[in-house]
């Protein structure tokens, strides 16, 4: 059995799953320290299990086979907003140095060049330009200079900087200089964590370097949070290994989480989409998650979210780490309805229970329209009985059309694509979405995120520019695929279960014909020791 936990801005949800089956699910308020909300949610799960035991009157426990306790859990998966919130709030960030290897190139735009001033200050940001770096075809820009790096380390130490980000030009093509620089810096700066850009981002120096600096600034916090979570689990008698969800829907263990906190940034929307897919049994689909203010639309392919191909700006910092491609439109259960039948983008938000007509308020919202049309029973339906039928129908059509158009914008081919709707606002949608066919509405969708965390797998990835010599194409492609598979296994995947889920081969323009960027992603099931609950004598 597994526990999946999703820490959102408002709620912390937890589910206990036995294979594909949801055994227990709870929702608790997110606490300021985050760990408190997680503990409360886990205690909620434990209480549900206690009530399910024989004698507690639960019909499901009558069979007597699943009288589980938290100590029977094999793995705990957490999707959390701790780290992205710390960045957005510029809170608890470590003083960080960015060491860039690339001189004499790149000096026109030093590290931190396009950062908001407040964040540069929050990380006491200091950039160092050093020699090193590679060309696109693997030639050197210049040799690494160990003495220069030692002098840089002296300055870092003298300034009391506690975390270092290293980026080297074209390190996605050749990782050598970043690794050598890390060795030299580590020897000079014992105890200072070092983050390497080739492990975090892809081609695009500034964006990759930015993501690496953000990661470096979060590493002290990561250690604190990871230790806190592990302690909280132990306090509840949970001895199972703990994992955190990453942006791409795969897992990382705690050791990895200490080193790559930035990889958790977009786990919320990813888990929501993957949970929706698992609940509906559809792995390739569009997922529409309708909340109070916005609707988020994403595309799943083979159970994994399609990633954005463009740069993503987080807290005003441009980065290029992998984020799911999500289109948000200003349409939700709390959207205001305008006289011309327009819906949103303004919303009453969390004030819905006071301001909507069905709750005795005076604002006409999308929820009121859904209730008036008989799609949901919320509040007092008699308070919207007076609404003009044709107006109600017109607004509903408008909502369906807007969502259908957003789905249409996200599609990448004219092939039919099933649509799965989740979230409280999904009552706004009809059973048939224009141009999209039947809408799938899985049960348990209010905890889709936590389910997405619980079902996560282990991934391995390669993204590099290769110079492909004539006749060597197949060999190069095979090597790239094998490397991705090896990385997944090294990350903890069961060797037999690993498969390639994404493969891209992109020729690079304006360069001699054989430069090709190859991207491969492999995933496999988490190799966990399944504890047998039968025949061990404790039942």
């Amino acid at each position, binding site marked *: 059995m597994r526990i999946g936990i999703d820490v959102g801005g408002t709620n912390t949800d937890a589910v206990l799953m036995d294979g594909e089956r949801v055994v227990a699910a709870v929702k608790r308020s997110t606490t300021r320290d985050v760990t408190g909300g997680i503990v409360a949610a886990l205690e909620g799960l434990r209480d549900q299990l206690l009530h399910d035991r024989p004698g507690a009157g639960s019909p499901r426990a009558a069979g007597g086979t699943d009288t589980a306790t938290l100590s029977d859990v094999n793995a705990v998966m957490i999707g959390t907003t701790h780290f992205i919130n710390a960045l957005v709030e510029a809170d608890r960030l470590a003083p960080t140095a960015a060491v860039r290897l690339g001189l004499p190139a790149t000096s026109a*735009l030093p590290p931190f060049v396009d950062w908001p001033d407040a964040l540069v200050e929050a990380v006491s940001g200091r950039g160092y330009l050093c020699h090193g770096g590679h060309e696109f075809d693997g030639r050197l*820009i210049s040799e690494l200079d160990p003495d220069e790096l030692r002098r840089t380390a002296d300055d870092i130490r003298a300034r009391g900087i506690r975390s270092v980000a290293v980026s080297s030009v074209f390190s996605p093509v050749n990782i050598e200089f970043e690794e050598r620089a890390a060795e030299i810096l580590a020897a000079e700066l014992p105890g200072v964590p070092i983050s390497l850009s080739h492990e975090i981002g892809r081609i695009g120096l500034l964006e990759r370097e930015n993501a690496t600096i953000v990661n470096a600034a979060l590493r002290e916090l990561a250690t604190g949070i990871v230790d806190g979570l592990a302690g909280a689990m132990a306090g509840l008698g949970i001895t199972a290994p703990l994992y955190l969800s990453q942006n791409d829907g795969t897992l990382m263990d705690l050791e990895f989480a200490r080193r790559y906190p930035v990889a958790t940034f977009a786990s919320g929307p990813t888990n929501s989409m993957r949970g929706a897919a698992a609940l509906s049994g559809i792995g390739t689909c569009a997922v529409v998650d309708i909340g109070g203010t916005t609707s988020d639309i994403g595309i799943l392919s083979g159970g994994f979210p399609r990633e954005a191909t463009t740069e993503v700006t987080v807290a005003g910092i441009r980065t290029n780490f992998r984020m799911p491609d999500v289109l948000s439109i200003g349409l939700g259960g709390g959207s205001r309805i305008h006289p011309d039948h327009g819906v949103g983008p303004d919303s009453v938000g969390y004030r819905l229970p006071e301001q909507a007509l069905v709750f005795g308020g005076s604002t006409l919202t999308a929820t009121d329209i859904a209730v008036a049309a008989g799609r949901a029973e919320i509040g007092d339906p008699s308070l919207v009985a007076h609404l003009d039928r044709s107006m109600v129908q017109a607004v509903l059509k408008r909502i369906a059309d807007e969502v259908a158009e957003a789905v249409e914008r996200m599609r990448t081919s004219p092939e039919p694509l099933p649509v799965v709707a989740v979230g409280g606002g999904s009552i706004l949608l009809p059973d048939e979405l224009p141009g999209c066919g039947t809408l799938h509405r899985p049960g348990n969708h209010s905890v889709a995120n936590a389910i997405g965390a619980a079902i996560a797998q282990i991934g391995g990835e390669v993204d590099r520019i290769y110079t492909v010599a004539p006749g060597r194409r197949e060999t190069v492609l095979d090597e790239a695929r094998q490397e991705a598979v090896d990385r997944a296994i090294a990350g903890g995947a069961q060797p037999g279960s690993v498969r390639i889920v994404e493969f891209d081969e992109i020729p690079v*323009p304006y*360069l001699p014909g054989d430069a090709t960027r190859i991207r491969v992603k492999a995933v496999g099931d988490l190799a966990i020791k399944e504890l047998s609950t039968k025949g061990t004598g404790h039942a």
Partner: protein
Amino acid sequence: MREIGLDDLADIATGAAILGTGGGGDPYIGRLMARAALRENGPVKLTPLAELPDDAVVLPVASMGAPTVMVEKLPAADELSNAVEALCGYLGRRPTHLACAEAGGVNSLIPVAAAARTGLPLIDADGMGRAFPELQMFVPGLYGVKASPMAMSDDKGNRAVIHTVDNHWTERLARAATVEMGGSSTTALYAMTGRQAREYMVPGTLSLCAELGALVERHRTTGDTAEAVAERLGGRVLFTGKVLDVERRTVGGFARGTARLTDGSAELRLSFQNEHLLAELDGVPVATTPDLICVLDQQTGVPVTTEGTRYGQRVTVLVAPCDPRWHTPEGLALVGPRYFGYDLDPVTT
């Protein structure tokens, strides 16, 4: 517009992406370089073509190479001035003004950075009136202004001066040197007198970029940006519809491809090689290079690059007349449909 300050850069970048007609490279790096240079050196003075004295020495500057390299191996701080210095040394004269070689994409802002760094004024003009992929595609070149001698510089401090027999040779040798320099270089070329610049350069294109950018910003929520842009450029909206299909391949180092659009009844086919070059409505050519075929997001009016075009986008396509000199036989030989391998006569917008 008499000077370019920090607040103008965003608008110029957007306008340059429109005149880039889908290509020209991401203006982000150019914008950062211009911003860094303006922060250090203050605003750049912009000289209208009409005010340029006969004996001015005008020097266009531009980046050359692969956009993928430019976003990874960023330029060295002195790379821009090195190219200018190298050419000055060879010519034995110093420029009085810098200029943009092209108005589209990254190369609309690199010269702003160069002007701020060298303290020279920039002329409000460029040599194409849009973006094109090769350096011989330059209006003053039609009237005998030579790209040669051309200076190049790289991140390492290497400088090269190429002295060639014609502009095609300049392109060939410079392209090869750029690959050796690691896939990107900074260039200074087409040195000309103030009088030549006045007569041959395409006037007013930097202020046009700024104006177009401001227009997009103003119309962001009104949904009629394409009409406003078309009107400003003296063109017309060709088509509004949804992208049905995009096909890409790389041929001879250039990203070629087609995009099919539909509005429910008619179909528009766009052919591109970095830039949009041909639009066919239900099989009939309705716009061709050298005129500007611009694709804007239907809702926000933000220009869509050929690289960023994908299935399901709702876009508006407009065509605008290029500088009329491109429609002469000499101009069409350089940038007409046949040069790019499309066997048809140019359509006049």
